[in-house]
């Protein structure tokens, strides 16, 4: 039973108090600004620099002077640019958001400076007067400072009232005028151009496992668009995403040859010939870094490349990964081990790492998480590429360090040494290995070794995957796929899911930042392979979980969960 104690009197006085506080803050702020003066005027800098400073105000909440911006929220709560930037609600593209049932209107150049039409279910009603007049520089300043739109309406108090000087305001207004004003390259004549990337170090079967479903998605989308064109009544039923029903797609294949150092030049040449809107998927056996950097530098979004060697960054924007790959397995191992206090008991942890891209990514994830958890760095031994982890070497390290746990980032070459460890007198209580690095050899781990061996496994367990299988395989029905190729097909299913939804959610606003913004605002997705793909503004790794498992006994072992999907 709910009881309402809020009275009309309370509300009236609350509102009065907020209005008075706001007026007082604005008057006093004006005085302070006038006294302090401002060292930087827009006339002193180039237009390019002014735009950069305006973008910094919008994205990072930092004034041209370098100080954080200040604002008043809900009438009486002072907030700073550390927590309240324009981008928080209006998003990077400026096209706004709906979150927690709060509608944030667009603030991009195209929309702000023309009258806002009245809409009914997303359709403009020409016969009605506009909902608001076009903003001018002055009325925009009034809205940002005082919360009044050009039609005299008060903006919702969810919008903070920002305390900008006239000069600061010029930087921001200049930036807003430039924000999302013409569609991004790669969209024209109702067609969105996409590319996917395959490097020549990928086996043909793996390449097809990604390419075939992706191409059939594009073909299906184009067939649908054709049907809708000839049957507009059906298209209208697709409101509010009518724009995407007519949208056609092209998918180019960018093949990369030779060593990764040469890829950048090849990518630039492909892009010069065809500046695509975004990269869908892509697959390489090498590190994704050169392609990641190409995307960052050219501001080309890339969605879900099939790679376990992504760039792990907290600030890069343009590539959205399925997971952190091997790095994530390393993180999972550190988090799991951290909870084994009784086992650790102040003793050392030894990490043996194969000198390879995979070994290095696993070790980085483990070490970074281990440090974040406040632990001392593990004793690390690097195995050169050609060197075998021998029984003698392993015993020697165990005798010397007598560790509580051994973290072993290697492929199947490490298995014989593990067998020998079983009988060793200084066998650690726990050995952690990577399922990704071992691949199919995981199932060859001997029975005696299984009971002290823990495995990082960043996917849903095979025995729980059955309900998700019918969704992914139709286009591949006649192909005989191995497990790792099936994984690629399932990853491609996620690419298609996200792509398909993003095309709808963009609602005809074909700006690259909007494409990434709408993906950031998507609800979590149930997909094959991963327990959960979760999104959020600025999040760049959709699957964040990793099980720690053990192999069961017997000739046909199963994986047994030893942890939850996320470990803290």
């Amino acid at each position, binding site marked *: 039973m709910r*009881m309402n104690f809020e009275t009309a009197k309370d509300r009236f006085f609350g509102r009065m108090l907020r209005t008075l506080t706001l007026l007082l803050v604005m008057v006093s702020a004006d005085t302070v600004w006038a006294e302090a003066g401002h060292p930087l005027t827009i006339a002193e800098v180039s237009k390019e620099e002014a735009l950069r400073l305006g973008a910094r105000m919008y994205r990072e909440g930092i004034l041209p002077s370098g100080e954080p911006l200040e604002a008043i929220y*809900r009438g009486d*709560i002072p907030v700073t640019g550390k*927590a*309240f930037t324009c981008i*928080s609600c209006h998003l990077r593209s400026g096209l706004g958001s709906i979150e*927690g*049932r709060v509608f944030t209107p667009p603030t991009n150049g195209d929309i702000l400076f023309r009258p806002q039409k009245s809409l009914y279910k997303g359709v403009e009603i020409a016969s009605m007067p506009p909902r608001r007049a076009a903003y001018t520089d002055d009325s925009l300043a009034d809205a940002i400072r005082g919360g009044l739109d050009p039609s005299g309406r008060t903006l919702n108090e969810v919008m903070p009232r920002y305390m900008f000087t006239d000069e600061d305001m010029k930087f921001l207004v200049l930036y807003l005028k430039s924000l999302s004003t013409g569609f991004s390259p790669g969209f024209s004549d109702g067609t969105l151009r996409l590319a996917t990337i395959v490097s020549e170090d990928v086996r043909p079967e793996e390449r097809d496992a990604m390419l075939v479903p992706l191409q059939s998605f594009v073909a299906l989308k184009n067939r649908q668009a054709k049907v809708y064109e000839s049957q507009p009544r059906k298209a209208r039923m697709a409101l509010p995403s009518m724009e995407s029903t007519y949208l056609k797609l092209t998918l180019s294949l960018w093949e990369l040859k030779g060593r990764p150092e040469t890829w950048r030049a090849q990518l630039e040449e492909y892009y010069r010939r065809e500046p695509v809107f975004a990269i869908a998927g892509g697959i390489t056996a090498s590190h994704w870094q050169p392609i990641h950097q190409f995307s960052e530098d050219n501001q080309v979004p890339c969605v879900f490349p099939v790679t376990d060697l992504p760039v792990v960054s907290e600030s890069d924007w343009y590539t959205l990964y399925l997971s952190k790959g091997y790095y994530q397995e390393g993180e999972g191992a550190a988090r799991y081990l951290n909870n084994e206090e009784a086992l650790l008991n102040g003793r050392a942890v030894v990490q043996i790492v194969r000198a390879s891209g995979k070994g290095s990514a696993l070790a980085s994830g483990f070490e970074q998480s281990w440090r974040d958890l406040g632990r001392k760095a593990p004793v690390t031994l690097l195995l050169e590429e050609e060197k075998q982890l021998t029984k003698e070497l392993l015993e020697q390290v165990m005798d010397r360090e007598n560790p509580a746990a051994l973290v072993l980032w290697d492929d199947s070459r490490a298995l014989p040494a593990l067998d020998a460890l079983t009988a060793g007198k200084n066998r650690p209580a726990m050995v952690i290995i990577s399922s990704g690095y071992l691949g199919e050899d995981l199932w060859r781990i001997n029975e005696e070794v299984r009971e002290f061996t823990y495995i990082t496994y960043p996917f849903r367990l095979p025995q729980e995957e059955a309900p998700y299988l019918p969704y992914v395989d139709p286009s591949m029905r006649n192909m005989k796929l191995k497990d790792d190729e099936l994984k690629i097909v399932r990853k491609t299913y996620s690419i298609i899911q996200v792509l398909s939804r993003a095309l709808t959610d963009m609602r005809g606003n074909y700006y690259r930042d909007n494409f990434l913004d709408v993906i950031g605002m998507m609800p979590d997705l149930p997909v094959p392979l991963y327990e959960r793909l*979760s999104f*959020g503004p600025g999040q760049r790794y959709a699957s964040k979980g990793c099980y720690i498992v053990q192999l069961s006994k017997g000739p046909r072992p199963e994986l047994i969960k030893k942890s939850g999907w996320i470990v803290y």
Partner: protein
Amino acid sequence: MTARGPFAFTISLMLLVVPCLAKEVRAYTRNEYKRTVENYQVPEVTLVNQDGRRVKLGMLLNSKKPVMVDFVFTTCTTICPLLSANFSDLQKKLGPESGKVQLISLSIDPENDTPKAMKAYLQRYNARPGWDFLTGSREDISRVIKAFEAYTPNKMSHLPLILLKSPSDTQWIRIFGLVSSGELMREYQRVIK
């Protein structure tokens, strides 16, 4: 069941559920908030705070201090910054007294909200001791959020809620909507009276 069955069932369900939510939503889109008194049975779960420490939620909720709870996530765009600014301002206004109230932010995005991310978030809001940010397994977090009637399947549609409880009371004050600092302080004063 006929082909129309599931459709009719969905519509009936919507007719039942929508009016209940609509009243609360209408209130807060008009810059108002709704205050109700509730009874909640919160499950016994162990969560993890911003320092990576395991925390029994029951112990935190039933400490000898007044408690305020909200539901946020570190990359949230609109509502969470507003809720968190309110917690931050409340602590600032209470000054040396800020440790006398236990503020709890519960993550609704536990996959992404690691202790490290939560700690950085609290620092962004100048959080003082007495404000804990909790994460945990998806199952535990969902059980707690459901117990507080704050669950939404999609975190992007989450609710602007602050729950308050006095240490001497078993009932919770539920504030639905985005409140001003003055309004929250007034509610807090009412709770500790």
